[in-house]
């Protein structure tokens, strides 16, 4: 199954490298929103709760773009039929799509987090970067698991561009709370990893629950 998932993932990454669709759109969206906040809030810098909220809400909204396009090639070019006609475990498709979304998010954050620091952050990330990377990594796993599931569900609907955000965003609320709360102390002038363990534990639990749930129900989403 892992080998099949790797085959599908390689194909998805190759297509993304050629069409340059999802990652540039997500990155541009994220940086644009940070620029809008920079001017809209009319403040030189943000810190604490506000900074953490702006960082995470923007990243999660950007993920909607990725989720909406995650199954585009399968839907528009018959890829799902191709997979159903192959002797493979369908869970491999879920793993591949979650893996692709995870890599897209990492690529976006490599640009978006420095842009956020430059445009909006008062105290700077300083020594808090390792903790932030851990929070981002756990957040990405959760978004990837939920996104791969919701993307498959939305791909089967007529109003898929509407369905994806309507399903995705409510499911991401617990993840948003955990990520924002874990990040908030890191973005205060007197930064420190306050309560970090508790929020990281919650994030890990969210990731485990949604990965298992998605694996359990994904097969049924591909039924006619």
């Amino acid at each position, binding site marked *: 199954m892992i080998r099949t998932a790797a*085959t599908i993932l390689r194909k998805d990454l190759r*297509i993304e490298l050629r069409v340059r669709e999802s990652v540039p759109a997500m990155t541009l969206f994220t940086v644009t929103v940070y620029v809008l906040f920079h001017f809209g809030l009319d403040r030189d810098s943000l810190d604490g709760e506000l900074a953490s909220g702006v960082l995470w809400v923007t990243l999660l909204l950007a993920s909607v773009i990725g989720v909406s396009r995650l199954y585009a090639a399968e839907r528009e*070019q018959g890829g799902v039929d191709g997979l159903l*006609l192959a002797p493979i475990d369908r869970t491999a498709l879920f793993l591949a799509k979650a893996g692709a979304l995870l890599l897209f998010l990492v690529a976006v954050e490599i640009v978006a987090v420095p842009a956020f620091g430059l445009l909006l952050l008062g105290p700077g990330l300083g020594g808090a970067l390792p903790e932030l990377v851990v929070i981002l990594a756990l957040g990405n796993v959760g978004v990837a698991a939920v996104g791969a599931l919701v993307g498959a569900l939305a791909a089967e609907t007529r109003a898929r561009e509407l369905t994806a955000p309507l399903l995705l965003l409510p499911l991401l609320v617990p993840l948003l709370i955990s990520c924002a709360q874990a990040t908030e102390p890191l973005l205060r002038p007197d930064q420190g990893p306050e309560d970090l363990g508790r929020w990281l534990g919650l994030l890990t639990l969210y990731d485990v629950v949604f990965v298992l749930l998605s694996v359990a129900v994904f097969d049924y989403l591909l039924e006619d």
Partner: protein
Amino acid sequence: MIPAIELDRLERRYGERRALAGVTLTLEEGRTLAVLGANGAGKTTLLRVLAGLLRPHSGHARVLGAELPAERWKLPAQVGYLGHAPLLYRELTGRENLRYHARLHGVGRERVSELLGAVGMEGRADDPVRDLSAGMVQRLAAARAVLHDPALLLLDEPRANLDPAGAELLEPLVGRASGRTRVLVTHDIEGGLAEADVVLGLKGGRQVAAGDVDAAEARALYQ
């Protein structure tokens, strides 16, 4: 002879509409079934049910010994499907597409090279599919359908977009010369009748002709 396909009062609905209503037939191994009928008669639905892509809603269906829908997991290794959509990614080259499908089927790269040569696409194999003509895409799609050397071929207008030379190239792979059991959906009445051992005529999802069908009966299906 062992039956490759056995259908008994097969029914498939889309909402309230019955796309297939009571189709009954038997096709023995190595034989060709031609499915004729006007647009919307249920031909493609029948192919998709036989491929395991759609569930039958009632009746009995057994394909290559697999009861549908319960045992449809047995089908992918044995069935080759060439439908309206080529099931190829436009941004990938022909070779990349075939290698991708070959990996999914656990088939080696040498089979990909062999088939690219067989369909006359070795020279354009590294061009993205979006840059190829419809006929070339159809040749690649045929190569994809037979990558895993399936026992049963489900073919929906396999010669669509092909010039005579292209059609001749595909004959050993998907034609009668392939020696495989075939279900052939076509609007080419004379061609279909010439190739078929058994004919199934569909009208509005209902079976209106089966077995030996002459050209006049076949034409009546389209009126």
